[in-house]
């Protein structure tokens, strides 16, 4: 065997894996910082027993229920308005289309907190609402914190959602509209059976994001006395001055709610992804 053949023989050599020094150092630094953070919380003047005591207290759990209730109420209103205004926006009727554009413009243009205050204080300018002479109610009776928060958050959400839904509708290929018409479908049937189910794939991820955003936006309703979880945590800490402990309790429940919703979102998206496991094959 000649010397030139020898350099091509590798099977008897030992393999030494490469060391990732950069990864090890950066991981070490991050772990040290994390340890410092844990230590700070452990040594800080946090009475963890209060956190434990209040985590499952009646007031906090009531607040949690109200937070979830408001999230669903406002999102339901938002999604209904969003779908309706998105369809109005893409319709050929110029009046409907302009109104939808105006709706998005106005309600996306004002802060959520301001809109909450606006609805809650509606009685100042409209003492009575309803159809004059037929059905009338005193605005203060109707505009409870729940109703005001649902309207303010739901209507604002509708403005955002209508843009998301519009994007979803535009993402559906024009051939789908034609195929639906070709089997004799009318507008509504086509939207319900063919277009919306396909648009859902595009609509759902941002809607999921917005539901999660809404869980936290409901905390703004505490300023109009809606008894959601932050509002109730504040009531407790005004009395016992354990501010941070109760904020941690509220944080825990927000995080828990958001985590569960993330899992739910995953399953819903999986349902609407049916038929889309592979990209369209051409042959």
């Amino acid at each position: 065997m000649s010397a030139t053949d020898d350099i091509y023989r590798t099977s008897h050599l030992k393999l030494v894996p490469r060391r990732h020094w950069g990864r090890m150092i950066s991981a070490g630094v991050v772990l040290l910082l994390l340890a410092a953070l844990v230590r700070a919380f452990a040594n800080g003047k946090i009475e963890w027993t209060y956190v434990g005591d209040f985590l499952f207290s009646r007031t906090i759990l009531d607040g949690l229920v109200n937070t979830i209730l408001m999230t669903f109420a406002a999102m339901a209103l938002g999604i209904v308005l969003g779908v309706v205004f998105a369809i109005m926006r893409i319709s050929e009727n110029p009046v409907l289309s302009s109104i939808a554009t105006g709706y998005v413009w106005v309600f996306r243009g004002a802060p959520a907190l301001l809109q909450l205050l606006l609805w809650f204080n509606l009685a100042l300018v409209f003492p009575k609402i309803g159809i004059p002479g037929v059905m009338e109610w005193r605005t203060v009776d109707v505009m409870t914190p729940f109703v005001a928060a649902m309207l303010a958050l739901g209507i604002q959400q509708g403005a955002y959602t209508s843009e998301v839904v519009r994007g979803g509708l535009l993402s559906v290929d024009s051939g789908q509209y034609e195929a639906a018409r070709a089997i004799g479908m009318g507008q509504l049937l086509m939207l319900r059976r063919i277009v919306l189910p396909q648009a859902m794939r595009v609509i759902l991820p941002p809607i999921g994001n917005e539901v999660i955003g809404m869980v936290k936006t409901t905390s703004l309703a505490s300023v109009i006395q809606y008894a959601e979880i932050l509002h109730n945590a504040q009531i407790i800490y005004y009395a016992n001055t354990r501010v941070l402990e109760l904020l941690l309790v509220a944080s825990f429940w927000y995080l828990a709610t958001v985590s569960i919703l993330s899992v739910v979102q995953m399953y819903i998206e999986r349902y609407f992804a049916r038929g889309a496991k592979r990209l369209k094959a051409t042959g």
Partner: protein
Amino acid sequence: MSEILVKAIDVTKRFSNFTALDRVGMDIRKGEVACIIGPSGSGKSTFLRCINMLERIDGGAIWVGGELLGYRRQGDELHELRDHEIARQRRRTGMVFQRFNLFPHLTALENVTEGPIHVLKEDRKAAEAHARDLLARVGLSDKVGHYPSELSGGQQQRVAIARAMGMRPELILFDEPTSALDPELVSEVLDVMKDLAESGMTMIVVTHEMGFARSVADTVAFMESGRIEEIGPAEKVLSDPDNARCAAFVRAVHK
């Protein structure tokens, strides 16, 4: 001779200042297979889409089964039909698209039953049985539960043909049904169409498949620049056309 199913008189269609169809006229009898050939941009597909009201016509008129499309005559007035009346008129006509346009969120079976169940309000069981028969007829018995994304182009187009047939139409329009297919998949679709033609279905086919036109079509129309330049029996138009441009086109395609 059987009765006339489709009658088009002076059909004109303009896109802004481009005239896509210029006084196109055509008679199709029940059971007839007509192929429309011609260079791209000649208005073949536009004419087909007018017969299914996917395009509005700017002049002339089309009748399907004696029914004037898009309008209702009241005395001396023509009243535009409403959306649901147009949808009802479309049910008599099936359409097969170049790009299949299957509903991607529905299985092959659901694609076929969608119209019968939700438009025709047929009983689900009966519609499914009919759909299974149709899918068997196009050779896809083993694919009923597959989604379009799991099927080849040729299989998708065969499902699309079954979907059109599911509505029990009197007429099926084919808009370049094999143009989006890989060459080796063309024949499986043409075979299904040939079978359909032999069963007596009335068909109008926009195609570049001269072999299919020659062997299946009763009538061939050659279109150019929005006009029908030559129309007649398939053998005559494809072998011995009177129109010089038609002759040049047929020669070019056959090369």
